[in-house]
């Protein structure tokens, strides 16, 4: 779009944009740089002393770090698979129905509108040891032990709760993409005797693939950094069985007060996020 000079000059551009830029520099950029600074030192009695790579070597020699990394992997991978898979199925179903669509969408959207703490409270209650309603159904199969007290069970619940909370996001994103698929393409294909799955993979999938890819990266980023819902549901427990990297960061800083170590972990997570972010922006520009 060609913009005439009558409308604006350089000065008004700067006036319009600089408040936001200054804000972001102070509130976002500076703290990010500050966490790098913190990660190379330690604070004792309010005094900062430079310790070089000590925080990082301690972090990388700690088995907690690797165990959390594995848990983050399991959590994120399951979360991603379910959000994309179920989200796609939901979007396909929604795109095929002509009645009650808004009603279905409204209900599916509710978990997205409520907070992580509220969601966590609800899921804890369903699986409460003695009086949880869903737990009562499961009791005969797992010998009356709360599923949240089993390491695998707690992980499964945390994943399920996270998928429940996030599902509307991918489903509606996919629904938007499905609506861009031209209907005219299906008729000749059907006349040629193509089956439904043929038509899905050869037509629909090709068109929505960029959206699926973008949604996958976004979901991965959210999975890696998921914290609020896990804290509200299990607080990382039992033991450390749902302690992902994000929970480890939170606990290191606010439970054990080891802010230097937490800052080092922040830097590691920052780098992981930046890498994914760059991939995301590349894909966004291509599409």
């Amino acid at each position, binding site marked *: 779009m060609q913009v005439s000079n009558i409308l604006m000059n350089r000065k008004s551009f700067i006036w319009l944009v600089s408040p936001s830029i200054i804000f*972001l520099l102070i509130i976002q950029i500076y703290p990010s740089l500050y966490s790098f600074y913190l990660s190379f030192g330690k*604070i004792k009695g309010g005094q900062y002393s430079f310790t070089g790579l000590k925080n990082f070597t301690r972090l990388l020699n700690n088995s907690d770090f690797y165990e959390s990394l594995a848990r983050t992997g399991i959590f994120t991978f399951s979360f991603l698979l379910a959000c994309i898979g179920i989200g796609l199925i939901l979007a396909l179903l929604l795109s095929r129905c002509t009645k009650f669509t808004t009603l279905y969408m409204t209900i599916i959207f*509710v978990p997205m509108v*409520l907070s992580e703490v509220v969601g966590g409270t609800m899921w804890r*209650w369903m699986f409460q040891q003695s009086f949880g*309603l869903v737990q009562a159904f499961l009791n005969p199969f797992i010998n009356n032990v709360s599923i949240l007290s089993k390491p695998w069970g707690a992980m499964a619940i945390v994943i399920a709760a996270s998928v429940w909370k996030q599902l509307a996001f991918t489903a509606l994103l996919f629904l938007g993409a499905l609506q861009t698929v031209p209907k005219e393409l299906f008729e000749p294909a*059907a006349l040629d005797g193509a089956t439904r799955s043929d038509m899905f993979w050869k037509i629909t999938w090709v068109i929505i693939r960029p959206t699926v890819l973008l949604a996958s990266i976004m979901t991965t980023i959210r999975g890696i950094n998921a914290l609020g819902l896990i*804290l509200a549901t299990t607080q990382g427990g039992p033991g450390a069985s749902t302690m992902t990297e994000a929970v480890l960061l939170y606990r290191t*800083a606010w439970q054990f007060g080891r*802010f230097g170590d937490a800052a080092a972990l922040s830097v590691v997570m920052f780098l992981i996020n930046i890498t994914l972010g760059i991939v995301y922006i590349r894909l966004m520009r291509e599409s």
Partner: protein
Amino acid sequence: MLIRSRRQIIIDNIVTHGLLIFFCLIMIFPVALSLMTSFKTKTDVMILPPRFFPPEWTLEGYIKVFQSDLIPIYMPNSAINALTATILTVILAAFAAYGFSRFKFKGSRALQLGILGLMMIPGITNLVSYYKLVSQLGILSTHLIMILVYTGFELPFGLLILKNFFDAIPIDLEEAAKIDGCSTTQVLWHIIIPLSLPGLFVAFLLILVYLWNEFLFAVTLLSANEARTAMVGLYDFQTSFEVAYHALSAASIIVLLPMLIIFILGRKTFFRAMMEGALKG
């Protein structure tokens, strides 16, 4: 249309709606269970085997919540933080988005990509440095710090949505007004703002819901009881109320109600934003 028999279409419809109803029931079940629990008495919460519907409907749980700090202290705090930050974000983002949309400079594109990149960095990697910086400045547990952090955090997102909206407004109108002798301020006030009201509304709603629900910054930066937000208060109830799940459920319902109402009133806006990928961040 596809060539399919009438019978096949009917079966398709039944399967589609059946599966959707099944999904909806799963999605709403935790919320419905909490709602039912919130109307139970303390003893009915602990009957075996547990039941879905309250045997006796009561407001006991709600009364207990009304006696807590949630309604006089925590909810007003949430409202002040979220509303102020949302308004500030929308104003700042609107100016910047308008600048980016209407004026092309060398480096403007790079600047926009940089801001988009900021959106990819989750709040969690800044938690530790915020905490350290804020405690050094002595402004832990204040509205000020929450508003600043929230605004900084939501600014890139607001900017992205609003720029898309401004890009869709034709520039001819503004040029005509300029030729007729309107100043930039007049153009902004009389043309741009009225035309972009829907966009400003979308940004406002999405950011408000996010910030009302925000938990991580609040739980790490607010330690004083009088500064706590509803989410932090609710998180603390989990331990202090223990098995008083009727009160805990009532608190959950009270906290989620304002945003649920906003969502139901503006649901079309949310859906459109979602399907167009406005929430891609």
